[in-house]
């Protein structure tokens, strides 16, 4: 025992010395190479789940694909469609799209990208066996014809005015056939045409991308190396930018952004995003099968209060079309049932047969997407008209399960919006829409949605969607609340980063570090 006693004392001494020992090492650990390579380190809260552009559904995977692959067309920072791999396009009629490709674009394996690759990629997406989430975006494409090496023609079975916007989706990236065939799929490799190439991927730790020296945009990318670090906690992400371990970070959490605003070493870049926070009803369940009840609730909701309390002010009130889609979105003042009016709401409830209000549940989850904070504010606001909302706070997996099974009275959600009204609203509210889990069926809404997707004259389309926004605000199957800001916390070394608004990191290619 004497021996173990000595050991014990030795350990105790070691422990006392321990922290000092570690602290002493601090100065010599970090050695930053000043010149040579320019490295940009970006912190993200989630690891990518696979890299196959045609297969992935995870937001985190899309953010890597932004930089590894290209699409025929892409969105710029104003959410307008601009050339990407296609230099230009002709639309001879509303069923035919002809794309003229850039010449000399090379895949990361060195081979030139040609029209055959476009045909292969889109057909892979359309193949049911690929199970691509992008299939629904181009389901109306009936044939893809290679006219010559740099020209490809898409023929539609029915008009789809939003096709160009759909083609900006990462799920419709252009990939080389040989890479797919060599690896079964592209989940673990990246052979794109994008500004960066995959160098190393240590799952749950980091992903290193290096500059593509053959990238078709001159002077791009501006850094030699891009490192993604996965840090799940938003407070830790902020700490990373503050301490200089990270150059920038994508942060959703409003409280952390507010904290970042008070730190001099970092700056916050924000703009209204394209997603929409919604409060939607199961329109097949009483009392929400009655439009009067839905209208009454719409009149009881105060968007500004929700943004102030649940998002720390970091969002913009919106109607059915995300406010950032400036070309299409009508201001809320022009939409019915979109400003609080408790007396009118109570009158509507009385008319609907609920003079003393009623009780219902709101399914929500404590993840950001699950909108617990928003549900709490709504719960409180509805007290003003005598309606009792019971929050059913469930784990994220249960939440999705309830969503899939349409098992809710009402639900707070975040919906992936689009700068193109057809792409967002058709699937969300058409009676045949794939994500119309409000089970909303309305002849007028269907008519306007079908009309809008077939129109090619911009003024005519605008008139259709203006009318649709009013119809939807009045029918209120779902209350569109606000678009959360897209936030990036940026350190002092970084210049030239631009936000797209849909979360895309495309402009990292034009970002430089000092």
């Amino acid at each position, binding site marked *: 025992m004497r021996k173990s006693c000595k050991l014990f004392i030795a*350990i105790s001494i070691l422990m006392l010395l321990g922290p000092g020992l*570690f602290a002493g*090492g601090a100065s010599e650990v*970090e050695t930053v190479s000043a010149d040579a390579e320019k490295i940009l380190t970006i912190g993200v809260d989630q690891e990518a789940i696979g890299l196959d552009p045609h297969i992935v559904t995870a937001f985190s995977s899309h953010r890597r694909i932004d930089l590894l692959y290209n699409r025929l067309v892409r969105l710029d920072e104003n959410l307008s469609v601009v050339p990407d791999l296609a230099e230009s396009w002709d639309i001879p009629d509303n069923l035919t799209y002809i794309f003229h490709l850039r010449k000399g674009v090379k895949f990361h394996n060195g081979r030139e990208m040609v029209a055959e690759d476009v045909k292969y990629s889109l057909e892979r997406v359309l193949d049911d066996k690929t199970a691509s989430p992008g299939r629904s975006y181009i389901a109306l494409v009936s044939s893809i014809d290679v006219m010559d090496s740099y020209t490809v023609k898409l023929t539609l079975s029915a008009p789809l005015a939003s096709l160009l916007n759909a083609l900006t989706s990462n799920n419709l990236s252009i990939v080389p056939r040989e890479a797919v065939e060599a690896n079964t799929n592209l989940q673990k490799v990246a052979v794109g045409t994008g500004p960066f190439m995959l160098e190393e991927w240590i799952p749950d730790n980091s992903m290193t991308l290096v500059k593509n020296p053959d990238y078709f945009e001159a002077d791009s990318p501006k850094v030699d190396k891009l490192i993604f*670090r996965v*840090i799940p906690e938003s407070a830790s992400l902020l*700490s*990373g930018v503050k*301490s200089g371990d990270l150059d920038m970070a994508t942060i959703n959490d409003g409280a952390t952004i507010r904290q970042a605003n008070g730190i001099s070493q970092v700056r916050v870049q924000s703009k209204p995003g394209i997603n929409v926070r919604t409060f939607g009803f199961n329109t097949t369940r009483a009392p929400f099968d009655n439009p009067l009840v839905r209208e009454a609730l719409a009149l009881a909701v105060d968007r500004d209060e929700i943004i102030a309390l649940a998002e720390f002010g970091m969002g913009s009130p919106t109607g059915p079309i995300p406010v950032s889609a400036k070309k299409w979105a009508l201001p809320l003042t022009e939409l019915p049932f979109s400003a609080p009016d408790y007396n009118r709401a109570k009158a509507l409830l009385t008319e609907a047969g609920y003079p003393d209000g009623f009780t219902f549940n709101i399914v929500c989850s404590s993840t950001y997407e699950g909108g617990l904070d928003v549900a709490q504010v709504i719960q409180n606001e509805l007290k003003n008209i005598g309606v009792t909302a019971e929050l059913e706070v469930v784990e994220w997996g249960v939440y999705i399960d309830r969503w899939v099974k349409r098992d809710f009275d009402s639900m707070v959600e975040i919906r*992936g919006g689009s700068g193109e009204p057809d792409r967002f609203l058709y699937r969300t509210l058409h009676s045949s829409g794939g994500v119309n889990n409000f089970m909303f069926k309305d002849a007028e809404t269907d008519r306007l949605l079908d009309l809008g997707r077939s129109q090619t004259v911009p003024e005519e389309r605008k008139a259709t969607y203006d009318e649709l926004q009013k119809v939807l605000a009045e029918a209120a199957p779902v209350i569109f609340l606000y678009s959360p800001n897209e936030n990036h916390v940026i350190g002092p070394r970084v210049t030239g980063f631009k936000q797209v608004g849909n979360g895309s990191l495309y402009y990292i290619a034009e970002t430089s570090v000092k």
Partner: protein
Amino acid sequence: MGRYVAKRLLSLIPVLFGVSLIIFFLVRMIPGTALEMYMGTQVEATPEQMEELTRLFGEDKPVFILYTEWLGDIVQGDFGCSLRTGRPVLPDIMARLPLSMELTFFSLFLALVIGVPLGIASSLHQNTFGDFLSRVTGLLGLSLPQFWLAALMVMAFSGFRGWIPMGNYVSLFEDPVRNLKMLFLPSLSIGIGFAAVVMRYTRNSMLEVLQQDYIRTAKAKGLKQRSVIYTHALKNAILPVITVTGFNVGYLLGGAIVVEEVFALPGMGRLSLYAIYQRDYPIIQAIVMIIATIFVVVNLITDIIYALADPRIRLDDTAR
């Protein structure tokens, strides 16, 4: 001793079988399936696509058949592939296990080197201000949730570059100094609560032992205070501390899982959290099986240490 160890290791088989049964059916009882998580709320798919995905996610077969298939595979050492990443499960877990184990043992080490000396000191100066202070501090350490302490440390130390790992984790073998420096705060946030437990056990146990006759005899025959405490009292008082330590290794591992998330350490914790969120059944199942094995082995090691520390205990019947 050898026979005893072999017997105990054999008992792993029924334990793991039971665990496999429970975990396999339990994870499938949680609402929401891996396929639903994969699709999320934003994706549209045709019925044909859904059929293909159902097949890919292995949801086209009855759960009992799936269980027997899985059991057959793990007996052969094949834990299957992740439903989300498609990567084999075992190498992914093994790549992360060392970090979680290191974190667990580092925090255990910190807990012991803080808790035992404090417990001894506290018992020797019973009911003094110092005793009172360390007891209150101990209670505080016991009451603070690990994740909260961890979050607090992240905020407090974020100005010190290199103290908080920011995804640039290095293993113990690559760069020991940097590794230990990075793990110090996470280990402290896990270990501090357990240090309080150790302190209280040591103190109570010491107080009990110090009142026994043989201690009075030792003092009476003129032994030095040091010798009485360290050679005679501590030797007996430490036994319950060993027991409680063995039991708690599992809980420390659980703490490591939460704290890894806060400090962004790429250990098993993040893998399992992610797997639970995504309903990635093969990963959850494999992690639970591995943790169950660790639990049994650690308990065995505890028993062996116990026998070494206390000669009155014989593990092996044949050794008598």
